[in-house]
């Protein structure tokens, strides 16, 4: 079976500093992959590379078996097939929740305003935010904003969702509501790549966990392997720090 996403030999540096050195990754359809590792290990950069938000230096990224890093490929078309959610929500502050959600369906996917509106309503009802439809983002709590950001990405019916530390900017009591949305997506069979610091969540939701250390995948395996029996000393060290911090 063709992988949904395949990353081959990816190298990426910012201003001479290598962030990703020779990264390989395969994500099967309906698979949930969690990227773990300390801050600055390259998790965010990898997701941004897959979404073509930053140019890559070397290597290749394939979506459904076709290269998307080929210069001839239109990045706008590629991005229509995937959604990304950011750590800082990045909702558009001058638009209501409804306008945030229907922007891409209406302007990029050419869906009628009425249908896009209907879609926004359905999503908001499903995630329990129906009464916030005409609010501006700064009237919402962080957890609500992040859920709207997820809905905004889902409104385009993506085949792949990328999550970039989506709970890192939230107060602890708001984390669960966002993680539950992602759990719901797993149950529906969404293919996802999730960069996260929530180890309990990663163990729970991931089919595959990748430990990223200094720009390379040091260890990849099932949650059981990575969390119960890590073979690399660096992985053990990282997990021990998480345990010491009371986060696992």
């Amino acid at each position, binding site marked *: 079976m063709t992988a949904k996403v395949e990353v081959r030999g990816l190298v990426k540096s910012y201003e001479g500093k290598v962030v990703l050195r020779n990264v390989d990754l395969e994500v099967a359809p309906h698979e949930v992959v969690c990227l773990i590792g300390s801050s600055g290990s390259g998790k965010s950069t990898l997701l941004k590379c897959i*979404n073509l*938000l930053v140019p890559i230096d070397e290597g290749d990224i394939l979506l459904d078996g076709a290269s998307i890093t080929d210069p001839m490929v239109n*990045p*706008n*078309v590629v*991005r*229509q097939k995937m*959604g*990304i959610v*950011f750590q*800082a929500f*990045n*909702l*558009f*502050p*001058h638009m209501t929740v409804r306008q945030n959600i229907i*922007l*891409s369906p209406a*302007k*990029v*996917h050419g869906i009628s305003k009425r249908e896009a509106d209907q879609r926004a309503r359905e999503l908001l009802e499903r995630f329990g935010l129906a009464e916030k439809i005409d609010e*501006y983002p*700064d*009237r919402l*709590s*962080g*957890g609500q904003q992040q859920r709207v950001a997820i809905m*905004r*990405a889902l409104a*385009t019916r993506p085949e792949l969702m990328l999550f970039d530390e989506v709970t890192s*900017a*939230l*107060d602890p009591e*708001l984390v669960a509501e966002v993680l539950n949305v992602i759990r719901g997506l797993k149950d529906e069979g969404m293919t996802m790549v999730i960069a996260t610091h929530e180890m309990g969540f990663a163990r729970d939701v991931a089919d595959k966990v990748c430990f990223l250390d200094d720009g390379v995948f040091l260890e990849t395996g099932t949650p059981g392997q990575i969390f119960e029996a890590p073979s690399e000393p660096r992985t053990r060290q990282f997990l021990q720090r998480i345990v010491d911090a009371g986060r696992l």
Partner: protein
Amino acid sequence: MTGPPDDIRGPSLWTSIRRPRRHREEGARAAVIAAISTVAVLGLILWWVLSSEAWPEVQRQFFNPSHFMAAWPAVLGGFWLNIQMFAVAEVLILIAALILAMIRALRGPAFFPLRALVIGFIDLVRGIPIILLILLLGFGVPALQLPGVPNSPLFWGVAALVISYSAYTAEVYRAGIESVHESQRMAGRSLGLTQVQSLRYVTVPQAIRNVIPALLNGFVSLQKDVALVFVLGVREAVREAQIYNARTFNYTAYVAAAVLFLVASVPVARFADWYTERVRRRRQGVGGV
């Protein structure tokens, strides 16, 4: 990152803002002090000017009521043309400058020629004094007698103003576009929006809100600079005043024109200040409870 709970949050940045309540007594006291100080300062200046030996002569030359009345209809008629020129030019400037700024904001090597053209245009126009631009275009282009090209000095005078102000206003917009955080652009692009769509729906609406005070400042400036087309012989307020002066050797008509410009620009200037203050308060209101 997250704000306080809903019940104690301030009003929305994008909806309304309550002005902080002031203590009335304090306000009244401040008003009295301001009034006394204003009267004192103005009185002093007035006394100083009026005590000049040449004042009666100056008054006859510049502040002559009968000349004021005589010149008024022609100057007012000319001023109507100033207002029309201003209105037409301002609309064109706001549109042209936004297009220039958006082109300048496009990224990627494919847009390099466009970007370079815009930067070249802005540099060129900003490097030429506006009065020269008006003279060169206003006398130069009609002299070419190109078929199909308007040859009225009025047309080219306004065109020169539009060209010059567009370059400056484009830089105002650019500052606004750059003030919108990069993550907004990224969010727009990640949703599949093209560069132009992302600018149009995401960046520019936020940018414009940020630069409205600066744009209003440009309004005030242009309101008076439209008078510069008088050098082309266009019969607007200053030109009419000049004609009156040439006929009567009395300068009161210029004062009449000055009064008209003042009456038109002070409200805009006050509005700009009021609006800037409102934006500042709003910004401070959000996040700080």
